[in-house]
């Protein structure tokens, strides 16, 4: 058995080496949910990569070679993501754009790390990905959740003047992480108090009990970590109960669907999201390309996906090779113009030059609060 294993490992290694030698294209892996209920988070990144790579290839490619996309679906599930990752490694991806969900990303990173492949996510915001040091090959073009939670907490206390704050989350990876950071930041401030910290069950038929509890706690602001379906139910029931508590939330709520679903009840809700870059020429260019090719506005994480593609390709070009260490060095030293601004990366892998701002729903639109 052992001998057989050695042989098969050798065979595998050989086939890998073979494919790397024979490569006359630079292979960019793109992984994320492309089917299932979270597909709407993954597909915009694929489109972004297609558009960015089309531009790069038209300009002569990278290191004189054409860039080829390897697109693989992971449905945002950790157990599938490992399959996806090993498929990309087998197929000879040089660098990987993805994954979309933090959980799936964590599961897949080990496989890429063994194969010495750099991974850049446009959307995985879990702080541990960069801060724990467990994932040296990980980079991202979006700021991490703790920054967002800090913004939310400071905004609620300093700008809105809230003293008593109820922190609510949806028990999910993203929502609970955000809520815990917000709670930690609030506890450090002396002029605010966390009066409630609780999770709601996603998909429950109604949230009247938790709304009553918020009312009973006397909170003057709610900080909510989670996605828009639960947020709109809670906001609606709060407004129906004639409560005027502030509602501050995260990027999962800063979504047009939230306003569509909550309608008039959405008015006055605060949600943080990536900084408004709609004035940047590169962003406008990417937006126009998308509209020309797909005939609609791009979805979530489109510009981050576009930026990550540009940053990765730029690093390879500047490094002059597809070596792990060389790309890594250039990612950290070079600044590059992207649709999210002029960015570079720190040692942990977080992008320098991106951040969050707070938005408020005014007349059915998210308006940036300066």
């Amino acid at each position, binding site marked *: 058995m052992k001998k057989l294993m050695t042989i098969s490992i050798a065979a595998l290694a050989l086939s890998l080496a073979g494919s790397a030698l024979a490569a006359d294209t630079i292979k960019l892996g793109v992984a994320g949910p492309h089917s299932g209920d979270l597909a709407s988070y993954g597909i915009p990144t694929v489109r972004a990569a297609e558009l960015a790579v089309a531009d790069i290839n038209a300009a002569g490619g990278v290191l004189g070679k054409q860039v080829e996309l390897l697109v693989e679906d992971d449905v945002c599930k950790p157990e599938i993501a490992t399959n996806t990752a090993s498929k990309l490694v087998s197929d000879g991806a040089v660098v990987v754009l993805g994954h979309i969900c933090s959980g799936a990303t964590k599961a897949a990173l080990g496989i890429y790390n063994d194969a010495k492949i750099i991974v850049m996510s446009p959307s995985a915001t879990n702080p541990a990905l960069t801060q724990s040091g467990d994932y040296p090959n990980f980079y991202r073009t979006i700021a991490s959740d703790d920054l967002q939670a800090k913004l939310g907490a400071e905004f609620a206390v300093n700008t809105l003047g809230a003293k008593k704050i109820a922190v609510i989350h949806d028990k999910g990876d993203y929502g609970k992480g955000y809520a815990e950071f917000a709670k930690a930041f609030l506890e450090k401030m002396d002029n605010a108090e966390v009066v409630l910290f609780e999770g*709601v*069950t996603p*998909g429950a038929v*109604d949230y009247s009990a*938790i709304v*009553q509890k918020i009312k009973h706690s006397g909170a003057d602001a709610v900080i909510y970590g989670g996605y828009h379906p639960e947020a709109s139910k809670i906001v609606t029931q709060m407004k*129906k109960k004639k409560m005027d508590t502030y509602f501050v939330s995260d990027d999962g709520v800063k979504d047009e*669907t939230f306003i569509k679903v909550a*309608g008039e009840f959405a008015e006055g809700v605060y949600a943080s999201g990536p900084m408004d870059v709609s004035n940047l020429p590169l962003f406008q260019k990417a937006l126009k390309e998308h509209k020309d090719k797909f005939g609609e506005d791009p979805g979530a994480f489109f510009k981050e996906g576009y930026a990550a593609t540009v940053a990765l390709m730029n690093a390879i070009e500047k490094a002059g090779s597809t070596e792990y260490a060389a790309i890594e060095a250039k990612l950290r030293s070079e600044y590059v113009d992207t649709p999210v601004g002029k960015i570079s990366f720190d040692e942990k892998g977080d992008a320098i030059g991106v951040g969050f701002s707070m938005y408020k729903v005014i007349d059915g639109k998210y308006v940036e609060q300066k």
Partner: protein
Amino acid sequence: MEYFFELFLGGLTRGSIYALIALGYTMVYGIIELINFAHGEIYMIGAFTALIVASLLTMAGMDGMAVLALSMVVAIIYAGAYGLTIEKIAYKPLRQAPRLSPLISAIGMSIFLQNYVLLAQTSDFLPFPSLVPEFSFMEPYEHIFSSSELMIVVVTAVSMLVLTYLIKFTKMGKAMRASAQDRTMAMLAGINVNRIISTTFIIGSTLAAVGGVLIASHIGQINFYIGFIAGIKAFTAAVLGGIGSIPGAVLGSLVLGWTESFATGYVSSDYEDVFAFTLLVLILIFRPAGILGKTKTQKV
């Protein structure tokens, strides 16, 4: 005390929501002993149909009670039709099959219907208009107990009474009970058992549609997945009350609703489902057939 009262009302609403779905569950179970996993999906389809009809009518310039009534009627017709069709395709050919086969067929049907609506309509959440008007006499209490909540509670109570009457005192109800007790014997007594089963499915499905419309209009949003979670909770409630019993389904739902509401209010919503399921286990340990279920002594 006021807090207690508010939680009580919240639990009442939530319990009534469960009850509207649980009634259909319990009827179907009572007659063919099948956990109809697709029942939650009928509830969802009812809500979607109502949303489509209501939007068309609103665009055509109608408003108020007329929209509610018309969309409710259409939703009921369609839910009944879906219930009938599902029964004919997925369960009827399985009457003689091993006991678990219809259950798997039901799970398959549930997955199929979810994805059917996902593909035919959308995966996004859709806003659902509040079709129930705000009654003027409820005006001063609207912030504690809204009109739509009142509507749900009243409709649940009425449905329970009508169903109990139907089953206890009509000829059809008698036939239903006979078919539930002994299918072969009922057939010998001249009852068209197949028709009785179909009728039960239609009645159960119409109730789900009524629930779908009222609940969606109360909550204000729907998507293809709402039926699944609500269905599981409603089924739990039906078992809690004693599956097969109409008042049991309502009582079980209310107990479940209150448990969840008070657990959230006084302990923590983190564990509301844990409380709900622990209560279920406890009740079933002491009353293995549910609160109002009759423990059948087995004859050999």
